[in-house]
């Protein structure tokens, strides 16, 4: 049984996530969309905290909210001209997209609710993984440890930096 506070918190977070993500895709101002995305990402971070993954929540805020959204904002500012940041969606395509999204939602929800008993699992007790443990797992080479993907991601990031520079470089 959860505490009432956490239930209330849950609802606030869930509702804000849903609302902001809907707004992020429906708003016509692109900068606003980025802002709503930021809020959604914050909500996600909160979810991580609620599920006792504090490190993950911190990463989410630092990388997503702090890095990626800033990147978006820069990009928007670089590529938008005044008055150009509105786009008109035809009602037809909007409707089609909406229908597709809704059908997806229905299908997924239906299968989740009616077919997936695991979805109703109780939250078991868990110790919050401490930093030492996370660090060891990330740096270890044994079973269930992640040095190789870690290094792969580092290479990817390096490649991405170089690639970004090369692609965006002015010729």
């Amino acid at each position: 049984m959860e505490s009432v506070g956490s239930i209330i918190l849950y609802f606030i977070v869930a509702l804000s996530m849903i609302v902001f993500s809907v707004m992020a895709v429906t708003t016509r101002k692109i900068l606003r969309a980025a802002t709503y995305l930021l809020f959604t990402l914050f909500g996600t971070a909160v979810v991580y905290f609620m599920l006792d993954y504090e490190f993950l929540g911190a990463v989410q805020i630092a990388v997503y909210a702090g890095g990626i959204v800033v990147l978006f904002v820069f990009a928007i500012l670089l590529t938008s001209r005044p008055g150009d940041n509105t786009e008109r969606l035809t009602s037809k395509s909007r409707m089609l997209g909406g229908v597709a999204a809704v059908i997806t939602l229905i299908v997924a929800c239906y299968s989740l609710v009616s077919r997936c008993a695991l979805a109703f699992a109780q939250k078991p007790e868990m110790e919050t993984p401490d930093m030492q443990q996370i660090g060891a797992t990330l740096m270890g080479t044994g079973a269930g440890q992640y040095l190789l993907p870690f290094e792969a991601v580092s290479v990817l990031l390096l490649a991405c930096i170089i690639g970004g520079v090369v692609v965006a470089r002015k010729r």
Partner: protein
Amino acid sequence: MEMTIPVLILAIPLFMFLFLGLLGMKMSHKLAGTLGTLGMGTILVLSYYTAFQYFFSGAPEFINAAGERLQYLVFDQTWLQFTEKLVIKVGFFLDPISAMMLVVITTISFMVHLYSMGYMRDHHGVYEHGFQRFYAFLSLFSFSMLGLVVAPNIFQTYIFWELVGASSYLLIGFYYTKPSAVSASKKAFIVTRFADLGFLIGILVLSYYGGTFNFAELTSAPVEGLAGVSQVSLGTAEGIKAMFTNSAAPVFMGASVLTWALVLIFMGCMGKSAMMPLHIWLPDAMEGPTPVSALIHAATMVVAGVYLVARLFPLYLMETAALDIITVVGALTAFYAAMVACVQVDIKRVLAFSTISQIAFMMVSLGVARPEFHEGLGYMASMFHLFTHAMFKALLFLGAGALIHAIGSNDYTAMHGLRKYMPITHWTFLIGCLAIAGIIPFSGFFSKDEILSSCLGYSWVAYLWMSLVAGMTAFYMFRLYYLIFWWKEHETPEGHHAPHDQPWTMSLPLIFLAAVSCVAGFIPFGELVSWNGHPYDFMAHFDWSVAAVSLCVAVAAIVLATVMYRKENPLPSKMRNALPALWTWCYHRFYWDELYMFITHSIIFRSVCRPLAWFDRHIIDGTMDAFATVTNKVSEAIKPLQSGQIQMYVWYYLIGALALGVVTILCLL
């Protein structure tokens, strides 16, 4: 008999061909011609020696105790083995007719070699272009023809049959810059090739049932104790016939298979010997140099058909239906050719049709020959006529060549009254005409008389028919003779020398052949050649009543010709105007060429080849192209799906994923 001389007889001309063909252009004209003639002279000596040995040495492999002539296989060498039994061997087969043919071929060939030394150069003594090539081809022809007559098996005959065809093609087309010569050579080759198709199938049928290609095993029985010696035997031929009749399918389309085989082989003979309806190539073949016409298209190659029928004669005796066909074809051809010969203007054409007619005589003679009547007189008569005809027809052709050489034209309209200018030619030509007309004592009289006798033994219709043709022969030959040498005084065109007799190289062959034509009739041919090797007295079968009648007919025809053509007079044109349709048809050779033109051009070319080629390009190839076109079209059609619009891709993906999800859910329900 040792092998050296027969091998040399075949090897020397082949060597001369290769030698002159490869190196001829490097040597002078005169040297090439002399070498060729000397080579041919050597073969002449060797062949005479061989024939003499065969006929007169009395060796046990040539003649048996009963005085019957035998067949002797001098050597043979496997050339190509098809199956255990069917083997093509190259060999040398001596029997009366091949020995006789050796003499004929080498004599005429040598005369032609000699004659060409004079003929193939103009009045200033300049040799014609390709003179060496001419001698090379003559050597090739001599090689092929000798190989043909000495063949011990039918496949060797076929091989050399094709080779003489090819050398004939090369020689007819000798003046290859002349389109008419080119098309004549092409026509000759293709028409004979068509006939050879029948020959080939005939060989296949015969060898399948008979199980052998060898003449010795088809028509003769081996003689005990002497290797390679055999004797003509009806028993063997009956054995072959039994193989046909005992097989699972002895009859095909109403005739026995043996008849089919023999008729198909005869089809090859019809092509080579220019029997109707495959005769159309021979008149055109006169486009070749005249010595070639004398050698190939009068004396030797064109009688190969007769020779082959004679070679297989015991088998033909087994199926008299095939012999009847030969008789009918021969009789019709003889008459037809004689009719046409009566109106032609080109002297070589006249001689060509006369050749067709005379070969048809030989064919008829073979067709009517039966052992029951005068011990197969027809066979002997045919061979005898082949021999005499070769001599006098070569004489006539060489004489015509001399005229053409002197005048520069083939038409008698440019000649007339030449008897004073060219006496040697005149007299030799006259002897030739008398011989072919059948005037005693020239050679043609004897051979023709025997043919008529054997026709009489077969049926009186055949006798009358052939006598009529004999009369026509005398008529058209003397028409030709008078138109060339009499008719009116010769008018030499402005700026030309008066025609005169030819150099000795040309006169010598004429005189020699004329002499032979005078005396050849007295050769006791029956002693030498008969269908089964059994000699018989020639005079015992001589029918004086037949001889008298034919002599009368010939004389009457000559008289008619004299009346009409000796002096310029309006009688010929009157006769022409009396029967204009007949004259036109004869003059145009009964439109056979036009008929063939129609068949080949309009039917085969336009209605078969062109539609097939169209079909190939448009239907077959079109189908293949259509595969490509359809593939292209389909890919063009589905190319927009790969629009590069990422959102469209997401749509496709989403729809697919949703459909999959829905289906899964529905299935689980």
